[in-house]
C-alpha cells in the first residue's frame, strides 16, 4: 500500500468528515442549549440538497448565490422547527421532545416523498466543479476542495460568532444556565432560536455538499448523514462544538480508512464499523472526547 494511496484515502475521509462535522455541530448546539436531540436535523440535509437541486440545476442560479440561499433555507427550516415544535413543548419531559422531533422527521420525509416522489434524482454539478485536480498521487474534484474549504470557513465563522460576539456569549450563557441567563436580561427565546438557525443552516449547506459528493438525492437521504453525524456529535461530546467538529472528522476518516485499507470483503460493514467506533470511544470516554457532565434540564 503506497503512501499516495493512503494520502488519497485521507483526503476522501476529510471530505466526508467535513460534512459529518457540519451536521454534527447542529446536533451539539441544539442539545447544548435545550438538552434535546433534534431527530429531524438530518432531514434538513435532505431539504438543503433539494433546494440546491431546484435553484442550481433547474433555475440555473449561480453557485455562490445558491450556497447562500441554501444556508438561509436551512436556517429558516430550523427556525420553523423550533417555533412549531420545540417552543410549544418547552418544559415538557425530555421524551416529549424526542418523540416530537422524530415526528417532524417522519413528516418531512413523507412530505418529500409526496411532493418530490421517492425516485432518486441525479444531482450533477457543472463541469467547473467536477474538474479533476491532481496533486502528486492525490486526485480530487473541485467540489471536494470546495467542500473542505467552505466547511472550514463556516466552522471558523461559527466559532467567531459563538466566542467573540454578544449573541454568542448570550448563547453560551443560556446553554449553561437558562434561569441565570434570563436574570441577566437575555431573551432566551432569541438565543435558542439562534442556535437552531445556525445549526440548521450548516445542515442545509451539508445537503448541498452531500448531493455534490454522491451525485444522487432522494427524500429519504437525510437518515444516514443524520444518524452518523449524531454519532459524531456523541463521540466528540454532545453539547460541545469543537467536539462535534472533531467527532465528524474522526468518523469520516475512520470510515473511509476502514473501507480503503482493509480487504474489500469488509467494505459492506462500513456502517457497523461506525458504531463499533462509537461504542469503543464511549467505553473509554463516557461523555465523549470534549464532553462535560451536563445536567438534565427539567
Amino acid at each position, binding site marked *: 500500500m503506497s503512501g499516495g494511496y493512503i494520502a488519497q484515502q485521507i483526503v476522501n475521509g476529510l471530505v466526508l468528515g467535513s460534512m459529518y462535522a457540519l451536521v454534527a455541530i447542529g446536533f451539539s448546539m441544539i442539545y447544548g442549549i435545550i438538552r434535546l436531540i433534534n431527530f429531524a436535523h438530518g432531514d434538513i440535509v435532505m431539504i438543503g440538497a433539494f433546494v440546491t437541486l431546484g435553484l442550481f440545476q433547474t433555475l440555473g442560479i449561480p453557485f455562490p448565490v445558491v450556497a447562500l440561499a441554501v444556508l438561509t433555507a436551512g436556517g429558516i427550516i430550523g427556525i420553523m422547527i423550533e417555533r412549531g415544535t420545540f417552543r410549544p413543548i418547552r418544559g415538557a419531559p425530555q421524551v416529549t421532545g424526542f418523540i416530537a422531533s422524530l415526528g417532524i422527521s417522519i413528516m418531512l420525509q413523507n412530505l418529500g416523498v409526496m411532493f418530490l416522489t421517492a425516485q432518486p434524482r441525479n444531482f450533477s454539478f457543472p463541469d467547473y466543479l467536477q474538474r479533476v485536480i491532481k496533486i502528486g498521487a492525490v486526485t480530487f474534484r473541485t467540489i471536494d476542495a470546495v467542500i473542505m474549504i467552505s466547511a472550514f470557513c463556516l466552522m471558523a465563522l461559527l466559532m467567531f460568532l459563538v466566542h467573540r460576539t454578544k449573541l454568542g456569549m448570550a448563547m453560551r450563557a443560556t446553554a449553561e444556565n437558562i*434561569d441565570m441567563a434570563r436574570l441577566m436580561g437575555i431573551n432566551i427565546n432569541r438565543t435558542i432560536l439562534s442556535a437552531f438557525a445556525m445549526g440548521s443552516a450548516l445542515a442545509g449547506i451539508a445537503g448541498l455538499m452531500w448531493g455534490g459528493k454522491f451525485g444522487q438525492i432522494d427524500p429519504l437521504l437525510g437518515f444516514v448523514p443524520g444518524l452518523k453525524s449524531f454519532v459524531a456529535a456523541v463521540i466528540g461530546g454532545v453539547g460541545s462544538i469543537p467536539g462535534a467538529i472533531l467527532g465528524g472528522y474522526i468518523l469520516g476518516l475512520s470510515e473511509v480508512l476502514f473501507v480503503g485499507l482493509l480487504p474489500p470483503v469488509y467494505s459492506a460493514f462500513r456502517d457497523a464499523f461506525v458504531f463499533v467506533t462509537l461504542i469503543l470511544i464511549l467505553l473509554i470516554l463516557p461523555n465523549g472526547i470534549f464532553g462535560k457532565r451536563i445536567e438534565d434540564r427539567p
Partner: protein
Amino acid sequence: MLKIDDIHVYRGRTYVLQGVSLEVGRREIVALIGANGAGKTTLLRTISGLLRPKKGKILFQPDSQSQEIDISGASPEQIVQLGISHCPEGRGIFSRLSVLENLMIGAYLRKNRNEILDDYNSICRVFPILKEREDQAAGSLSGGEQEMLAIGRALMSRPELLILDEPSLGLGPIVVESLFQVLSEINSRGVTILLVEQNAIMALDLAHRAYVLETGRVVLYGTSGELAGNEDVQKAYLGGIV
C-alpha cells in the same frame, strides 16, 4: 420602592407563599430570615420574574420620580431592565465563561460602552481579584471569589435594587465579614438591598429592617434592633444568645 402586596405563589402543586406582604424603602437594606423551606428563595424568584404569583401584586418604583409599576406579570428580562438585579442562591455564575465575560453579561441590556467600562473598573476596585483573573474560566475561582463575581455581575446592570440570596453560603467567616463590609459600601452608594441570609446574626447586623418568614407567611417584622431583641427570634434564629 418595592411593595409586595399579599402574593400567593405555588411551585408545582406546593402552596409556598401563602399571602406575603412586605415593603422595601429606597436605600434601605432589608433582610429576610426564616428556616429552610419557609419560602425565602421562592419570594426572591417571584420578584425577579422567574416565578409568577397566582394572586397579589408586586409594585416597583424604579426611581423616586417615576410611577409605580406592577411587575408581577413581567418577564425576568423586563424586570432587569427596570433595575432589579437578582444574585441567586448558589451564585449561578457561568462557569465556562471567563470572569470578564461573566461581568460583561451582567451588563447585557446596557448600551453605553463607556459607562459599562466605568462600572467594570469600579467593580474591579472593590474586588481586585476579579481583575487579576479576568481571563480565567469563572468555574476555576474559589467559592468566595465566585460570590464576589456573582455580586459584581449583578452590579453590572447598574441596579436600583439588588436582591441577594444567601451570599454567605459555604464561605468562611473572614470572607463573609469582608463581603458584608462590601455590601454595606454598595448600599451607601445608593443601591437598595434585599437580602436573604441564613446567618441571621450577620443579617440583622447589616440590615436596617427585617422580616421573618415562616411556612410561607410573614410572622414578624421590624427594625433589626427590635428583631434582635425579640425573644422568639433569639430562640429560633440567633441560637438563643445575643
